[in-house]
């Protein structure tokens, strides 16, 4: 291409260099050509909006009112001092920690049961894993119906053993329990699946030799299996912690954050205070604070992954 240019525009130095520049750019870009479409999509749909909202979060931009003024970090300070924001942060933490903790305990227990061989294991595994495949919206509807006050199956069953169940989704704490139960129901299979994979790939020789040395089932679990699976457990835990922190669908359907704001997790709080009131700048500031929390957790996760890969 360069030489072509040379013969055509002989002596005209100015015409020379755009051609060289072009080929230089082509050479620079060429190795990345195939990855470009993906990067462009990510840049356009995720990175650009992020920059846009960062710049708006420093102003008093509001869809309802024209004009915007730069106000610095005021939105962030307001958010950090806002009682509602703090409360929803607390609700989010409570929700994520409870549902992840319960899910891990139940899922690990199930994985330990499924670890041995028995008739019908394949079918049973498929059936136990099903909740994970259910659409989150459908999870919300299922548990909304199960927790209904007037025909609730749950209160009906509790009634059979003489317990008078609360009006689940109308009381602060029972509503919180209800959304956690729904989340645990859906995500326990995830823990089961991954941890079962981990259990089955433990080196058989180590387990056997521990058995020969007379280790009991519990000792085997406590001193051999759990320590050997520590990094896998940590990874699953972090993944679920991050994902449950972002939960929106099922809670939106079940309670829409109510009663009051008892189940208003962070993403719901941002959604509820952002879109209806068109207060984009304030909501952007809150979502950036949300993002910071997630980035910290994610960095932990990725560091853990890289370490696991290098070992």
């Amino acid at each position: 291409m360069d030489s072509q240019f040379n013969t055509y525009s002989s002596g005209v130095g100015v015409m020379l260099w755009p051609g060289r520049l072009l080929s230089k750019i082509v050479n620079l870009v060429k190795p990345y050509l195939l990855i470009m479409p993906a990067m462009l999509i990510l840049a356009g749909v995720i990175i650009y909006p992020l920059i846009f909202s960062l710049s708006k979060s420093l102003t008093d931009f509001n869809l309802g009112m024209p004009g915007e003024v730069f106000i610095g970090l005021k939105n962030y300070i307001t958010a950090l001092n806002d009682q509602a924001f703090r409360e929803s942060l607390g609700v989010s933490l409570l929700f994520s920690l409870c549902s992840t903790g319960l899910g891990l305990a139940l899922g690990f227990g199930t994985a330990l049961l499924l670890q041995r061989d028995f008739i019908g294991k394949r079918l049973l595994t498929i059936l136990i894993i099903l909740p994970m495949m259910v659409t989150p919206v459908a999870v919300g509807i299922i548990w909304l119906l199960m927790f209904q006050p007037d025909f609730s199956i749950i209160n009906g069953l509790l009634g059979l053993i003489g317990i008078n169940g609360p009006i689940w989704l109308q009381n602060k704490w029972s509503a919180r329990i209800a959304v956690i139960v729904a989340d645990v129901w859906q995500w326990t299979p995830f823990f089961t699946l991954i941890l079962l994979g981990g259990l089955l790939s433990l080196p058989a020789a180590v387990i056997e030799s521990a058995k020969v040395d007379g280790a009991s089932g519990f000792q085997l679990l406590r001193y051999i299996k759990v320590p050997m699976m520590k990094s896998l457990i940590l990874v699953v835990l972090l993944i679920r912690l991050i994902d449950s922190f972002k939960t929106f669908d099922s809670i939106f359907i079940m309670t829409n954050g109510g009663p009051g704001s008892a189940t208003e997790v962070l993403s719901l709080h941002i959604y509820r205070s952002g879109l209806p009131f068109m207060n984009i700048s304030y909501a952007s500031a809150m979502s950036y604070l949300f993002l910071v929390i997630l980035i910290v957790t994610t960095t932990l996760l990725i560091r853990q992954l890289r370490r696991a890969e290098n070992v």
Partner: protein
Amino acid sequence: MFKQKRVNEINQKTSQQTVFKVGFVIMLGVILVFALFPLLWIVLTSVKTQRDLFALPPLFIFQPTLEHWHTVLIESEFLHYYRNSLVISGSTLIVVLVVATMAAYNLARSQYAYKIRENIAFFILSQRMMPPVAIILPVYVLFSRIRMLDRLETLILMNVAFNLPLSIWMIRGFLESLSVEIEEAAIVDGCSRLGAFIRVGLPQMLPGLLSTALLVFIYTINEFFFALILSGTRSRPVSVAVQLFLPTGVRGTLFGEAAVASILIMLPSLIFAMFMQRYLVTGISLGAIKG
């Protein structure tokens, strides 16, 4: 004497084993009931008459009816929304597979610096952690400025962006597990690089691509948040349309219909999960570990 003691020991051991076995079966049973009962209950709810729905104690044996199914499938516009969902998921799937395979090929095979490649890969992976709520407000503002709200293309674009990271990582993993030598041999025999990849590499990683495709399809058809905010009457997918049947407000009217709608939404993912479990498990465990 000694023999007797040993027999006792063995007896004790076998009785311990039976206790253990019974406990094992009971625990499995409890887990199975916890996992499946809600699903069973929703199916029962969908075929109960209005009167049976409110029976106390809850009924398990009753005369089934298809009236709620009729309402949802025939009298409402549910099928129209279902079509929207399938169009969105299908298009997303195709675009994601093509774009992700290209990117993954680049990350797995290109010769440029290892360090840059790793950093790009982890940058892409980090996008998966992005909470949708953090970008939905600017996305909403931007799309409304270019008049792209309530269009199928918008939802496809969002879904593509949010499914790319995981897909790239999965496909990259499959690509790296292929042996390059066979493809190189094909190149020596006169194939172009692209031809060698399509004729030799691609068929080998078909199972991997299939599990990626499945996961993308399920994630997309389950997607709710973007659809809730960016769609309207024309482009509404089924996950959002289901809200029309929710009993919020008018208490106790549409339970049966809500049950039917929720069954219809989860049906595609559940069917896939049942019949293609092997592929799916590969996908999920890989997806989970990698991202």
